């Protein structure tokens, strides 16, 4: 073990910059979530479709995007539109597109699982009471399914928030980007990165605890 003299002053001075980065991470994650939710409803609907080609396409979509590393998608959208088609996308747009693809795939699986967990009798009763199939889905099945999906959607949100750290690779100025730049400009990488890790922890951990609490409540009420 070497003697290392810690010096936190540079990290503390850089705090406003890191917070700015955190704001970018948050805006990115919120944008991705807002776009992904409706997309995932459509994909989940498609996976439950009775028409085989639609069902299969949705299956391919979720399985492919859930197994691909995010970095592959980010790099794909970083290189391909520019080098192959001459379209230069903003880093933020690249990040949103890549993240929406994976996030919507994960959310679609969550939504599908929740819809399938609702007793078919609910739908049958609604139809027997005179609702159309569409009304039964919208008024009876979906509200219950989404309620059941809520904690899992929260879990997807938390991992999304952590995963946004990858966008620093395509030059989006998020928390991780600012931390990496600061680390090498002030020559205090250990302190700055520890600080960044702590910021992520302070932001994510309480949300995780809140989620656990919601999980318990949903479970009890059933």
């Amino acid at each position: 073990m070497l003697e290392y003299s810690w010096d936190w002053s540079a990290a503390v001075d850089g705090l406003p910059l890191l917070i700015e980065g955190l704001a970018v991470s948050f805006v990115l994650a919120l944008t991705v979530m807002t776009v992904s939710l409706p997309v995932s409803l459509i994909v989940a609907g498609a996976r439950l479709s009775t028409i085989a080609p639609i069902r299969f396409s949705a299956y391919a979509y979720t399985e492919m995007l859930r197994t691909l590393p995010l970095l592959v998608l980010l790099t794909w959208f970083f290189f391909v539109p520019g080098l192959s088609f001459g379209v230069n996308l903003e880093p933020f747009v690249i990040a949103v597109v890549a993240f929406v693809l994976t996030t919507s795939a994960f959310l679609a699986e969550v939504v599908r699982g929740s819809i399938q967990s609702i007793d078919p009798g609910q739908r049958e009763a609604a139809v027997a009471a005179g609702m159309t199939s569409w009304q039964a889905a919208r008024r009876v099945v979906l509200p219950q399914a989404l309620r059941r999906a809520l904690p899992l959607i929260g879990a997807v949100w938390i991992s999304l928030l952590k995963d946004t750290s990858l966008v620093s690779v395509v030059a989006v100025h998020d928390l991780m980007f600012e931390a990496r730049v600061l680390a090498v400009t002030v020559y205090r990488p250990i302190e700055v990165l520890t600080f960044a890790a702590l910021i992520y922890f302070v932001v994510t951990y309480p949300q995780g605890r809140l989620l656990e609490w919601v999980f318990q409540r949903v479970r009890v009420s059933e």
Partner: protein
Amino acid sequence: MDLESFLRVFLPFLLGGAALTIVISAAASVIGIGLGLLVAAGRLSGRALISAPSALFVDFFRSTPFFVHLVWFFFALPILTGLSLDAITTGIAALGVYSAAYFAEVFRTGILAIPVGQRDAALAAGMTDRQAVRRIVLPQAVRMVLPPMVNTLVVLVKDSSLFSVLGVAELMYRAGAASQFSSRPLVIMTVTGLIYIALTYPTTVLGSVLQRQVAKAT
């Protein structure tokens, strides 16, 4: 880039990277599973002096991105230990420690999911404490734990793509290099994506098969 140069140059180049991805993931998962078992046992311990730090370990790593820790290990390990480590070793250490937090949760929830009555019944039937754990509790725990373990492994393989940032010539790194070198990123990146799917998809399928078997058995 014509088909021949793709098949003779680029594809072997990428597949070489995939081999390294497998080696990295295997090494990191050995550390992750081993350390994860220790941490899970620590969290289940009755002594607060052991269980509190284990819980902190799990919560801390699970609430922070792997990328931060990867870069942290890269900078901090040589400075703090005085050893000059290469990027692969540093990366494997980081991924091993990080995934240990996830593995630990998988093991802990698996063990907690087994009703206490199972152990009590085994003891009542005349088994020793050790026999009860080995013959009754562990076999059931392993069955419970396998499906989420497989999921954690898939995440680990995906996370290993971040090693490219440290300059480790695994699949992702080579994909970036080949994209620029060939100026045909569409082909290179798409093939890379397919290689990753080929690496992880069979594992996901195994995971859901195991999940169904557990559901059937319980």
